[in-house]
């Protein structure tokens, strides 16, 4: 099914819906043309879902946009054919293409925030598509729009059709985009990273929606993503892209059972899975080459553990059928290699034991941080018209952090996990007093941080450092790496002059960069390398605690693994504690000893990884963990999907913050009483919920600790 067909024009009904042959898209740059899509060939049948996977810069988005001929200067489609329904789209006029776009081929874009026109109502944006391609009256179109909003699960569609995009939540907006996509009943939908910008739980709902819509309408879907978990949950067959080339295509099961290209193997292996337990993530050195700087020979050869001399010379290998012909791989050795075994080492000893007998290094008690709900000096002043008559002036706050307590011991990693808006980032910043706490206490080695004066805090800063999510933004673009790392040393009087330069060089090597990096500017490095610089900068002052705020979220999967391994290494050697913030469950699972699950500014559950990932569960934890799409097509998920969306932190619900969406809500008590964080099943494991322990333990653990990360049997469960 995935080999390009040799059908000629006119056999539209029998042949595949989409047949891409040798597509080539180039971009003109100052340094010559770069090829973003290099002789890509694949095909897609009616009703099928194909995933196009790759890291950023691999060329998948460009390929997708080329299919719809949405490539503008300085880009150009320079070769190949895109045969859709028997006709070559590359031969059509622009006017003909306009009739096809939105109509026979539709797109669901990535970012729900910026893809909707803020000054047009949601309804207008749906109806205009309908009226563009179908001959219907205004009221008919409106009716159709309401129906399509219903289909995608937007409640109260009849009223909300006249609302503006900013009045919807992110998940709802994405549903609108799905509605727009399906509105004219296209034959093919191109979904460009449709869930990347969404939270895990919302992502789960949107993926289900897509599956449902597709099943109902019989639409073929081309799903572009970098997330193998998403692929495993939605696709029939998959294509893997690397540095502009399509390097493998296979049926879904085959891809995971026995990948044919070494890159696919390493991609699958570098994803930290929720249910596997291992010391070190297998990684490849280096990163995907820049499209302007491709190696001669196979693009992957420099990083490939199986590369031979023949691979390094001689140009890109062609995508040929392997084995029984259902898979194709662009590898000279595809026929000989057996990549069915994961390269992940056998289950390790798990994480080291942490000595928690002494005093905690870092302790947070009843921390609160409220922000003004608005900008400017009068930011939190609002007029409200409750109760009729004259408006009253009230002060509104965003309760970002609302009574949070936890501790961190020397040498351990405590995670803060939750979805966007839960307050995890704010907790970290407030605890470090980068923001002033509204209330609560913070102790570092027994010293009350919340009471110290500003100069005392400054000298204490040496002990607590931070690594940020966006590595580019965290390095001053006008300073060299050496200046950035060295400044930290200077500031705290650790070293100056020649000794400082020595140490800077040492540190850079320690984090995996060369000494020469000291003379370069941040923009000369890739994202992963920049993050290494940030780590070096944090280490320069020899801190005891490092707060990591989503340090790998902006990085590609393979680079992510490298950074996580580095952090683990450093922790082993220097016995540094980490406060690790992330929304990625797999990463948390891999790197943390204990974890706190946050929801709407409060901690829902806190305990060791074992404890939190096993029953008893806080209902939110349960649904959060179940929503993660596993990169394992054989696993059926028993996802718990939550209704509605996260309430606004300006107006949190009464009682338990989760009660508006909790699938296990008992009743009034949940609405009236705020549950306290209480110990369950012995000690050290805290949950804030009114349910009994038995009620919280109704499903199995998410971890099977005895499981070894080996071949996944073809049929299991």
């Amino acid at each position, binding site marked *: 099914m995935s080999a390009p067909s040799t059908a000629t024009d006119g056999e539209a009904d029998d042949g595949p819906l989409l047949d891409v042959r040798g597509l080539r898209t180039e971009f003109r740059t100052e340094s010559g043309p770069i090829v973003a899509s290099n002789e890509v060939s694949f095909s897609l049948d009616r009703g099928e879902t194909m995933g196009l996977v790759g890291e950023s810069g691999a060329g998948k988005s460009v390929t997708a946009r080329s299919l719809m001929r949405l490539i503008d200067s300085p880009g150009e489609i320079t070769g190949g054919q895109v045969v859709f329904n028997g006709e070559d789209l590359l031969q059509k006029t622009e006017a003909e293409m306009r009739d096809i776009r939105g109509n026979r081929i539709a797109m669901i874009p990535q970012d729900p925030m910026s893809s909707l026109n803020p000054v047009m109502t949601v309804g207008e944006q749906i109806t205009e598509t309908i009226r563009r391609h179908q001959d219907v009256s205004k009221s008919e179109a409106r009716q159709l729009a309401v129906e399509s909003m219903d289909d995608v699960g937007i409640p109260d569609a009849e009223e909300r059709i006249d609302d503006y995009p900013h009045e919807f939540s992110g998940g709802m907006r994405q549903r609108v985009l799905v509605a727009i996509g399906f509105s004219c009943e296209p034959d093919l939908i191109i979904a460009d990273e449709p869930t990347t910008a969404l939270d895990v739980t919302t992502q789960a709902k949107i993926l289900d929606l897509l599956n449902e819509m597709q099943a109902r309408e019989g639409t073929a879907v081309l799903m572009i993503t970098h997330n193998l978990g998403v692929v495993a949950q939605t696709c029939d067959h998959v294509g893997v892209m690397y540095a502009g080339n399509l390097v493998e295509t296979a049926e879904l099961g085959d891809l995971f059972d026995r990948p044919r290209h070494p890159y696919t193997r390493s991609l699958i292996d570098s994803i930290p899975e929720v249910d596997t337990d291992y010391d070190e993530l297998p990684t490849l050195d280096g990163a995907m080459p820049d499209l302007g700087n491709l190696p001669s020979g196979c693009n992957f050869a420099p990083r490939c553990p199986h590369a031979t001399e023949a691979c390094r010379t001689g140009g890109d290998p062609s995508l040929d059928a392997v084995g029984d012909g259902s898979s194709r791989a662009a590898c000279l050795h595809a026929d000989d290699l057996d990549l069915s075994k994961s390269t992940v080492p056998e289950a390790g000893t798990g994480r080291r034991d942490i000595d928690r007998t002494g005093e905690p290094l870092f302790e947070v008690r009843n921390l609160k941080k409220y922000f003004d709900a608005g900008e400017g000096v009068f930011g939190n002043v609002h007029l409200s018209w409750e109760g009729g008559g004259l408006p009253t002036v009230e002060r509104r706050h965003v309760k970002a952090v609302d009574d949070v307590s936890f501790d961190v011991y020397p040498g351990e990693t405590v995670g803060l996990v939750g979805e966007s808006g839960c307050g995890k980032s704010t907790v970290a910043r407030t605890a470090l007093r980068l923001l002033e706490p509204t209330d609560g206490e913070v102790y570092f080695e027994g010293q009350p941080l919340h009471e110290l004066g500003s100069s005392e*805090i400054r000298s204490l*800063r040496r002990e607590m450092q931070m690594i*940020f999510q966006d590595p580019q933004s965290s390095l001053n673009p006008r300073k060299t790496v050496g200046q950035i790392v060295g400044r930290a040393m200077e500031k705290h009087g650790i070293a100056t002059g020649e000794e400082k330069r020595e140490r800077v060089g040492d540190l850079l090597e320690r984090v995996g960069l060369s000494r020469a990096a000291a*003379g370069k500017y941040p923009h000369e490095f890739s994202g992963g390398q920049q993050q290494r610089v940030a780590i070096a900068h944090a280490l320069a002052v020899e801190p005891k605690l490092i707060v990591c705020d989503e340090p790998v979220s902006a990085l590609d999967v393979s680079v992510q693994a490298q950074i996580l391994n580095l952090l683990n290494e450093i922790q082993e050697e220097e016995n540094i504690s980490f406060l690790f913030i992330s929304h990625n469950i797999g990463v948390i699972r891999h790197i943390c000893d204990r974890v706190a699950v946050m929801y709407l500014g409060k901690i829902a559950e806190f305990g060791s990884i074992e404890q939190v990932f096993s029953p008893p569960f806080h209902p939110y934890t349960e649904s959060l963990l179940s929503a993660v799409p596993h990169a394992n097509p054989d696993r059926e998920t028993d996802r718990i999907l939550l209704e509605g969306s996260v309430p606004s932190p300006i107006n949190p619900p009464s009682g338990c913050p989760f009660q508006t969406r909790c699938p296990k809500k008992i009743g009034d008590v949940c609405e009236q009483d705020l549950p306290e964080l209480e110990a369950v099943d012995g000690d050290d494991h805290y949950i804030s919920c009114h349910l009994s322990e038995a009620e919280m333990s109704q499903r199995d653990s998410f971890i099977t600790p005895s499981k070894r990360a080996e071949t996944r049997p073809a049929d299991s469960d």
Partner: protein
Amino acid sequence: MATEQETDRGRFTITQSQRDRIARFVRKFRSNTKAMLGFSIVVMLVLVAVFAPLIAPYPIEQTNIEDRSQAPSVEHPFGTDDLGRDIFSRVVMGSRISLYVGFGAISGALAVGAVVGVVAGYAGGLTDEILMRVMDAAMAFPPVLLALTLLVVLGPELSNVIIALAFVYTPYIARVSRSAALAERNEAYVEAAIARGESDSRIVFSEVFPNCMAPMLVQGSLNVSFAILAEASLSFLGLGAQPPRPSWGLMINTGRGFMETAPWMLLFPALAIGIAVVGFNMLGDGLRDVLDPKVEAIE
């Protein structure tokens, strides 16, 4: 991946990377026609102003009643005015006035505006609000009007024109540097500096300020052209440079009366103003293009 070569000049080390960076900027600048054109014009103006006494063939005050109001000729390439003075010489010498005012006023505005803006942008809160309200209030008065009023009290002298214009244009620079500082303040490296324990003043001057210089330079360059125009207007109204100084604006004012009989009295100073202003505008625009790259993301 160039190898690092450090040349130690005492405390200053210039690495290869820094050299590369400067080279890149120069290359980009060169390839931008607007910037190059503007730059050339400005350089030419500066040279003319500096060497004006050598270029001008006639002393500007030399009146020669017999030769008055003559059309352009070989001896007088721009013609003569109603008092027989050579217009070419006066235009050339006039460049000194325009540039003197332009650079002087804007340097003043930059000095004050940059500090006010960056402090306001970084500090935020009440400081920012108050400072910005004051700046807003100052901008509510049209520049020429405000300058005129100031000149009433200060006295219509050229040096007072500079002071008045510096005062008038400070808020514009402050606005720009404030928004630059605001944008930088949100960058993670500022948080990293705080987390490192740096004091506020160190962060503002060492980390934030250098990153704000680009937009300030752009705005400054554009403001020089405003200042030149303003000076021309002020002189035109008789409150700027006083006769017999060869201010371009003043020359236009005089020329106005002879618009039909001797249009060259008007034409050349007007052209001079136009060229100067176009030059600085181009430079400013070009600088903005060069310093603000739009990243072309491919994926």
